[in-house]
């Protein structure tokens, strides 16, 4: 009796051992490739809305046009061009020929002029704009970027203005060549 049972177990074990792994590996690899292809390292992106002056023809409304807050931006110190990344190595003529990316280092200084007030500190700009906003929250603002101002300078200012609550922000179109 015992001997017969043993034989049965041996034969069962022999049969179950034949597991075909190849298709499973095939499918696993395929799934791996599939997820590698579909996986995207998405960078967080956002957008800031801005409007260009719309040509509305003759203004027939009775409302008195509001005086705009004009913020003029000038480069006081352009700063040094450096290669982006941790090393911050200087940007050479060779890099420029290859049209490699660059950023400006911390020595870059921008002068912001709001009316008669001139400052190089973005915090001070914020205080001034906040005071204007408290007087009249619907007052439009105009950003006037002058020579050599770069995109991140403007976006930095725009960000401050939007944080305060300004909704009507326009750009001055003409550029002083």
């Amino acid at each position, binding site marked *: 009796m015992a001997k017969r049972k043993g034989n049965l177990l041996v034969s069962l074990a022999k049969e179950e051992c034949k597991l075909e792994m190849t*298709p499973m590996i*095939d*499918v696993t690899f*395929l*799934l791996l*490739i*599939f997820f590698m*292809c*579909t996986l*995207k390292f998405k*960078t*967080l*992106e*956002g*957008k*800031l*809305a*801005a*409007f*260009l*002056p*719309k*040509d*509305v*023809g003759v203004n027939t409304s009775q409302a008195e046009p509001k005086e705009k807050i004009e913020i003029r931006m000038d480069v006081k110190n352009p700063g040094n061009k450096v290669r*982006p990344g941790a090393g911050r190595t200087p940007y050479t003529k060779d890099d420029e020929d290859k*049209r490699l*990316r*660059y*950023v*400006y280092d911390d020595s870059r200084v921008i002068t912001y002029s709001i009316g008669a007030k001139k400052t190089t500190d973005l915090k001070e700009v914020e205080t001034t704009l906040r005071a204007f906003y408290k007087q009249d929250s619907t007052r439009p603002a105009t950003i006037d*970027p002058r*020579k*050599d*101002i*770069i*995109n*991140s*300078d*403007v*976006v*930095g200012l*725009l*960000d401050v203005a*939007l*944080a305060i609550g300004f909704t009507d922000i326009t*750009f001055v*179109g003409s*550029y002083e060549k």
Partner: protein
Amino acid sequence: MNLQKHDAETEMQMDMTPMIDVVFLLIIFFMVITDLTQQDLEDLQLPLAQQASPDKPKADEWRPIINLKHTGEMIIKRNKYFDPEVNTGPKKYEDLRTQLLSMANRMKKAPLAEGSTKMVPDEPLMIRADESTAFRYVQDIMEQCGDQTISIWKLQLAVSVPDPNAK
């Protein structure tokens, strides 16, 4: 007769593995070739802003996007339409204008002002400019947009959002 019976039994066991293999391969193939959504977006370092609204386009949505590299090159859907080193002279923005015009024609229209019969594009144009790009290039695009024939007046500046997991 015995042989026929045996054959019928073995044919019932259909091996599904190769079929699944092929189906997966076809799925991957089509997913890779139809992934055109990223074509709009160049690899740029966008300026950082806190107040940005998140940008979540639908997969099949058409969006007018101009990429602006730090050198001033303007790229739409992987094609360059302006390069300050190549395009010079009074007609340097001719290629870009053609593109802007076709974008403006594709956009939804709305009346210019209340009661006006003139229709202008009512969708935003996204300008994706690198953080080191001279702003005069952005202003040049704005100037072209403001042209009577194009009259795109809604703009979006693409920015990068600070990583919420950082700090």
